[in-house]
């Protein structure tokens, strides 16, 4: 690895923070305000994408460390692992920005200024998490993300939203404190918290018990955001947030920050080798496997579409955790790519759910009969996303799962392959009926039609979702397919993920190897 001083990671973080300030300033001029969002989104994406070639060439772009506490620095670096996440988040933010504008304007939401500003801050925090070069930096942005998401969760200002916000904070803040204790302990033991591919705790003089406790603390801190059961409670509740929030944050940024944290902890703090010796990762793998199956079963019983998607998210995120916890190169690779694949597919699904909500005012699965005839593109994209989640080849999800399954076999744990297969079957059971209903069932003739002919004519005469929403969701659906066929398309995400995994397991022979 060659280290190059470069301030682009810092700018990637700052640009949306600056935008957040500008958005607050221009709260009374919606067009200008939204212009800042769009500009920041494109600017961020350009900055992040411009770093891809250098990172692919084996360089690590890092800023000069900023001293933030005695002996500890605020340090950002763009390594392959972080790039995967950063590229993903910055790309999807562009689409979400357009989608958000279409969505909130259609619904005439209140508090739009705070909404867009919080969103921008969230993206800054996400970039910070992706590029964090040590534990403290990671934690700083992790907590900022927690706080910045809170206004979005409570966006509706209803009692339900407030309760969801409380629940969200309770889970994430407690997790944050546990994480903090783990981090401080690490600094005390190792004297450093700088992420190092392959882990830096291996040579530290500490008892196995201490290391195990640190691992548990850190994993507890991260998996709460990733929604691994039994710590998933906040995620379905937080679906009260506006759909773009659910789409980008609760399917991509926040929850993936948790999953990404698991990868950082496993690959860059402990290292697969040390964890293999400690044997704690297998517990995590078991929990993840349990979550994968269990959440799918729960998802089948959810009638509210967003809740169903939320439980699906919980299950899919555990794929990432599982991949990391298997400690095999292919497992890690599968996990890394699952971050990308699931993000594209799930954001498509959430976009569709939001489009249904905003255009047709439909929130429940049971009401979706025949909707595909009115909104063919939306539901078409939904079908693509669903098939991807199920794991159909030639859609992005398949690549991650294939590698995961191989990784599980390499680790000598075929039971997880079984879990993957069961989960795939279950997810087809909870997602594909929606597609079927939308396209092949006749619309229910509303009984209310007679009683309220005038008032209800509006929502019934809707057509396809407006362009602000439709185009982004079609793009994400298309991206899901493209990545499924050619995973290196555009941003070389597959190569980056492979590089990241290679760096983590360099020189180590674990399980089956490549």
């Amino acid at each position, binding site marked *: 690895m060659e280290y190059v001083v470069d301030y682009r990671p810092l700018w990637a973080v700052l640009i949306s923070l600056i935008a957040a300030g500008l958005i607050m300033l221009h709260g009374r001029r919606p067009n200008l305000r939204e212009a800042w969002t769009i500009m920041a989104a494109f600017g961020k994406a350009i900055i992040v994408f411009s770093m891809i070639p250098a990172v692919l060439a084996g360089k690590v772009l890092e800023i000069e460390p900023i*001293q*933030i*506490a*005695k002996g*500890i620095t*605020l340090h950002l670096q763009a390594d392959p692992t972080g790039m995967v996440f950063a590229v993903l988040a910055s790309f999807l933010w562009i689409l979400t920005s357009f989608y958000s504008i279409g969505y909130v304007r259609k619904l005439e939401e209140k508090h739009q200024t705070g909404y867009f500003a919080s969103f921008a801050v969230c993206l800054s925090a996400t970039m910070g998490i992706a590029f964090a070069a040590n534990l*403290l930096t990671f*934690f*700083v942005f992790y*907590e*900022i993300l*927690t*706080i910045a998401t809170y*206004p979005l969760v*409570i966006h509706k*200002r209803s009692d339900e*939203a*407030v309760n969801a*916000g*409380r629940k969200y*904070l309770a889970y994430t*803040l*407690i997790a944050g*404190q*546990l994480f*903090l*204790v783990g981090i*401080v*302990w690490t*600094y*005390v033991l190792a004297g450093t918290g700088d992420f190092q591919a392959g882990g830096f705790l291996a040579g530290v003089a500490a008892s196995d018990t201490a290391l195990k406790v640190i691992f548990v603390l850190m994993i507890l801190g991260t998996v709460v955001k990733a929604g691994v059961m039994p710590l998933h409670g906040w995620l379905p509740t937080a679906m009260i947030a506006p759909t773009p929030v659910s789409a980008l944050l609760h399917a991509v940024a926040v929850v993936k920050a948790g999953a990404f944290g698991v990868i950082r902890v496993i690959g860059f703090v402990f290292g697969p080798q040390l964890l293999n010796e400690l044997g704690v990762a297998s517990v995590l793998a078991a929990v993840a496997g349990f979550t994968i199956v269990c959440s799918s079963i729960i998802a089948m019983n959810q009638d509210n579409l967003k809740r169903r998607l939320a439980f699906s998210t919980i299950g899919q995120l555990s794929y990432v955790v599982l991949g990391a916890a298997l400690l095999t190169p292919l497992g890690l690779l599968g996990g890394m790519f699952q971050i990308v694949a699931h993000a594209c597919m799930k954001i498509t699904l959430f976009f569709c759910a939001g489009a249904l909500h905003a255009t047709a005012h439909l929130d429940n699965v049971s009401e979706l009969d025949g909707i595909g005839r009115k909104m063919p593109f939306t539901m078409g994209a939904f079908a693509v996303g669903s098939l991807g989640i199920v794991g159909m080849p030639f859609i992005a999800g398949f690549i991650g799962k294939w590698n995961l399954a191989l990784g599980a076999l390499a680790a000598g744990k075929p039971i997880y392959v079984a879990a993957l297969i069961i989960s795939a079957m279950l997810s087809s059971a909870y997602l594909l009926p929606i597609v079927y209903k939308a396209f092949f069932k006749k619309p229910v003739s509303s009984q209310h039609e007679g009683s309220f002919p005038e008032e209800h004519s509006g929502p019934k005469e809707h057509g396809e979702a407006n362009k602000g929403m439709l185009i982004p969701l079609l793009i994400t659906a298309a991206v899901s397919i493209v990545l499924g066929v050619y995973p290196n398309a555009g941003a070389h995400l597959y190569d980056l993920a492979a590089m990241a995994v290679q760096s983590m397991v360099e020189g180590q022979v674990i399980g089956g190897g490549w």
Partner: protein
Amino acid sequence: MMEQLPALLILILLLTALASPFLSYISGRIVRWTALAAMFAAACCAIGTLIRVLAEGTWHYSFGGWEPPWGIEYVVDPLGGGMAVLIAIIGFLVLVYSGPYLKEENGLRIGTFHALYLLLATGLMGMVVTGDVFNLYVFLEISSLSAYGLIAAGGYKAVAAAFRYLLIGTVGASLYLLGIGYLYSVTGSLNMADLAQKILLIADSQAVLIAVVMIMLGMGIKMAMFPLHGWLPDSYTYAPPPAAAFISGVMTKVSAYVLFRFFFYIIGAMNGPIPGALQVLGVAACLGIILGSVMAIAQSDFRRMLAYSSVAQVSYVTLGLAIGNVYGLIGAMLHILNHAIMKSCLFLVAGGVKYKTGEHGIEKYAELYEKMPLTMGTFMIAALSMVGIPPTAGFFSKWYLALGAIDKGMWVFVVVIAVSSLLNAVYFFRVIEQVYMRRSKKPEDTGKSAWKISAELPLTMLLPILVLGVSIVVFGVFNEQIVTNILQYALPGGGF
């Protein structure tokens, strides 16, 4: 001039304080401007002193040509100098803020307010620069007496609270006096540096033990250490807002500083009864943090909540002392600084809301962010800092405390630090929810027009709040500068 800075620090404030009531017969404006000028001058002196101390080491300043240990000397080391700067700057900002509050008062009341305020500053300043333990007692009483007066200015409930504070506070001061009496009886000295040398030989004697117990109890009362905090909630709740902000910000911290001075400089952390005393301190701190936070959750009055939170937060400082290693002490000192800023800021916000709405109940904070966006934004920052969300200042004091506690294997402390953050989150997010979400229970039609009008505070009140709010973030991000350039020289052992 430069040579006399430590004396000027005290004299400027003292003389202006004494002149204030007389000046007020001429005009309230004159009092105000003189007081502001004096506070500003004192701040400049304090900064000048600190800069010189950092450059040239501890500054010994003897009064009247009497050499210590016979004469009284002022000793400014980085710790005392830093405290002096903190007191002067917070004092100045709060004084600026107090302007609109005093507009309706008559001239004499303005005069007495400023006199008491400046006397309080004098006392606190004196406590941190003096090198003589009896002189410290005198300054302690000066600051306490003026604090009683200031608190009593907040109405009749405040008078009762001030009286109770006076009784308890005097017990504390008397205990302190007894304590130094014991030290004097075995060493024959009142000079801190001299005491430190003489105590080394007799640190294990009973007299030192009794002295330590007395000083700890006395200062424990003054700094509202659990379970000696009974006077604090009422006093802080009913005091006039500017007084509450200043008193809550620095007064308890200065008492904590005294404890720090005695335990780590005069007697020495390893000597005689100090390790035992530190253990007691640690237990009290843990209880104070948890119970103070729990009590804060139970309050419906915003200022009362802040008052109980102060009990908890001061315990962080003692917790740092109890941890006792480099990181713990840095955490303690940093928390003195951070908490002074955060709590002053929060009390100023509380005062601002009272100024605008006349109410203190948390339920009255509904929807305030539409009316006072800047004030409430600052409140947000201060609250997050209290919870310990990075990168605000509050996070880093907790960081150092946790680092120290884990380094020493004090797991109970680690748990307490983590749990208390969550408790802080509970009571602050309760208010944040009110501020950002609850509709005020006004009828919809009048409410709507009222929301359109921004009712931000007057500039003199807003500016100090904003300055404090910004410094919370700045001190968070640049805390390393503070630690390397100031605090590490303030450590008893002298740096890392």
